[in-house]
């Protein structure tokens, strides 16, 4: 099922997204920023062809850089999670530099262990499932692809909720408190390893694939049973 969606995403993706720009490596955060970010975000983060980075803090920088969503080839393209081309040291330097461009929020520290799984599912259904699906498998919204959340670490999930990347709404601590966020993170982490009571999740996509299993397996078994009965009692 995953393969299929990956394939669908590749087919549906505009060709521009496929070309990932290379990055320039450097020793300091300022040099990394000047070489890789300043062209669009401006030399001092004032924003030229892209959003201003003054005051976004380390939170947004951490999210976009550690998911590989930034840098992108040209402004306006959807920043999507992809391979991270910076080294860990470069990431730390660059994130600290972007955080120093203006006073902004730090990297959040979610504590999913403190969250309530049931409440997390309820909140996720209310706020997130419209686009990400209740199983956090991702999907589409007109104008953008919605990434699946499997394997995304807790900190990235918390950051995305607060940052609202690309077309995703932004949820302030008034809309979703930090305690509620812990619950949501716990739920999302659980969707990566659901305990499938039936033994097989069938993509966790709901009744359509489950119905297909009914048709392709149960019906075949039924027909085979009928034929066996016919052979046994035919005479």
């Amino acid at each position, binding site marked *: 099922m995953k393969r299929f969606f990956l394939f669908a995403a590749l087919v549906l993706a505009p060709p521009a997204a496929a070309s990932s720009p290379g990055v320039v490596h450097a020793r300091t955060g300022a040099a990394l920023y000047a070489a890789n970010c300043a062209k669009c975000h401006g030399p001092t983060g004032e924003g030229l*062809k*892209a*959003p201003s980075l003054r005051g976004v803090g380390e939170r947004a920088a951490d999210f976009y850089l550690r998911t590989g969503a930034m840098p992108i080839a040209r*402004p*306006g393209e959807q920043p999507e999670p992809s391979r991270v081309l910076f080294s860990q040291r470069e990431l730390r330097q660059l994130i600290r530099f972007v955080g120093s461009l203006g006073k902004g929020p730090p990297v959040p520290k979610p504590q999913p262990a403190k969250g309530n799984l049931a409440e997390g599912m309820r909140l996720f259904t*209310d706020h997130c*499932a*419209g*686009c990400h699906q209740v199983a956090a498998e991702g*999907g*589409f*919204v*007109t*104008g*953008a692809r919605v990434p699946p959340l499997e394997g995304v670490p807790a900190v990235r999930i918390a950051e995305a909720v607060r*940052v*609202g*990347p*690309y*077309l*995703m*709404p*932004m*949820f*302030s601590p*008034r*809309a979703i408190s930090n305690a509620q966020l812990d619950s949501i993170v716990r739920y999302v982490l659980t969707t990566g390893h659901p305990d499938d009571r039936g033994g097989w999740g069938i993509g966790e996509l709901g009744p359509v694939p489950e119905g297909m299993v009914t048709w392709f397996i149960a019906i075949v078994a039924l027909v085979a049973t009928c034929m066996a009965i016919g052979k046994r009692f035919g005479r």
Partner: protein
Amino acid sequence: MSRFKDTVIAGIVLLLGRGRRTREPRIVPPGRPDRGAENILLVLFACSTICAGGAIAVYALDRIGNQTQYLGLSLGLAFAFLAAAFVVIGKRLVVTEELDEPYPPEGHPGVQAQLDELVEESGERFTRKRLVTMAGAGAIGTLGLALVAPAVSLGPAFDLRSFAQTPWRRGRLLVGEDGLPLKADDIEENDFYGAYAAHADRDQIGSPLVLVRLPVSQLQLPSGREHWAPEGILAYSRICTHAGCAINLYRKPLYPPAEPRPALVCPCHYSTFDPATGGTVLFGPAGRPLPQLPLEIARDGTLRAAGNFSGPVGPSWAGVRDRKASS
């Protein structure tokens, strides 16, 4: 007069000659009637009818617990009794015989007559043919009714007025998902909110709303709606005008100059509505704009309706554009 006589004579000849048909040799060997098996068959048909009727009753009585399980049980039993009835027919009531050679090809003269005879002779062991036929038809008919009964839930077939009714009128308070009154200050930009009419049935199609706040400078509402969005807070019916799903996606650009404009999106078929221009359709199969609800902010900061929707709420059907939302 002679014509009348001719007719009478012809009739008598027909009547007497009727029974004197020379009987062809039987195809199916004769069998003895089996009243016991027939009684079992009638009981099985009756049980199937009762179970199918039970399924209709369970479906109609909406409020019983474990309804799904009872529905499955009654329908399953109806089918099981029917299957058992067919087994009884096949094993004990229809004289069976294995043909040595395959059926003669169709269209062969006499084949139809032979088949008719076959069918007639096979049913010879039934002593109460009409009763059995009626019981069988009753069982199958009730089962068919049980299967089509849920179609009644698709909606009112004739009286569509309830679709146009909404709980909204001037001064009606908006409450959030938690049932608490919504205040204007609660509505932040970049997020979206669900709301309902206070003290009203949430299941009513006109009740659920979706709220967003946009910068006042971005609003391009149609003329006459200039005051419908105080502080840039917009309220729309949450029910998509295409097929009636809940608007559950809010497309909110992080960087408006380079990204698609804000939109309310229905997850079912991706109908996309523009909240800034009064809910007009940007994309997708929806044929008419999302109905907007005029808002006002009361002195205590709570959000209240300032009237009713701009148009009929809910999914579209023939003639829906001519209707108006009513309280």
